[in-house]
């Protein structure tokens, strides 16, 4: 069914369904696809993108307009990721929530005071992280928790859409997201120490 949303001015209905048309549409999306794949599954990122391109080409007929090619490809990529997740040995859900719920990055930074001469301690803490550091922190989080975090906060999908894409109940997505946020904060703190991002780690 055609959506009721009006089309953007420069949006074109895809009419040319040739291989060359597919190639021209997907080339500008490769970096975005690879970046998402790498955050979902670093080890098989390239395979994930290849499988995505293959599936996308097979269902090229379902792409309506050229402007939606990015989200369309990313959705397929998440599906591929979901299938590989299912095939792998069952990921173990963490059971106890209490001890990680007690962690507060905000309070930890205030108490540990990693930048003693700063008036903007919390801001400085975040500024110490480059994009590759963020990536490294994400990789410390178990994939079933990392996926909703990436898809919701970095890619902007709603929790409902994520539940559909990952084929789990909404409540499961919300619970995993809650855990993922906490894990992210915990891992940010431990990574900052390990990677020497904190001023107090400097040796004289």
């Amino acid at each position: 069914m055609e959506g009721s949303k009006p089309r953007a001015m420069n949006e074109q209905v895809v009419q040319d369904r040739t291989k060359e048309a597919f190639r021209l549409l997907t080339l500008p999306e490769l970096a975005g696809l690879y970046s998402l794949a790498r955050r979902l599954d670093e080890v098989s990122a390239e395979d994930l993108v290849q499988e995505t391109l293959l599936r996308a080409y097979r269902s090229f007929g379902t792409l309506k307009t050229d402007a939606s090619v990015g989200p369309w490809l990313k959705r397929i990529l998440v599906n591929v990721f979901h299938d590989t997740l299912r095939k792998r040995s069952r990921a173990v859900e963490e059971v106890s929530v209490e001890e990680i719920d007690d962690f507060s990055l905000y309070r930890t930074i205030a108490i540990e005071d990693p930048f003693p001469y700063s008036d903007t301690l919390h801001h400085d803490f975040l500024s110490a992280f480059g994009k590759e550091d963020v990536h490294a922190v994400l990789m410390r989080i178990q994939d079933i928790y990392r996926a909703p975090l990436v898809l919701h906060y970095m890619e902007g999908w709603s929790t409902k859409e994520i539940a559909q894409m990952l084929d789990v109940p909404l409540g499961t997505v919300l619970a995993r997201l809650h855990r993922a946020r906490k894990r992210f904060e915990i891992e940010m703190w431990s990574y900052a120490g390990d990677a020497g991002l904190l001023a107090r780690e400097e040796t004289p």
Partner: protein
Amino acid sequence: MTEQLIPCSEAVKRLWEYLDNAISPEEQESVEKHLAFCRTCCGELEFAREVRSFLATGTSDVIPQHVRDHLERFLDEL
């Protein structure tokens, strides 16, 4: 009638959901009531907001040249 304030631990647990607009109006109210009285949790909220936008901008779409080459070749051979 005054309802009891929720403790900091409860408020902090809900801050991200609060920022995501993902909690019920009642929960939202209980978080706001708490925030009106608690400066520490206001700090927590500001920081949660900062971490949230930090995450949203925490990636860039870069692809190593050799991976791009592989994928372009893959597209050629479809």
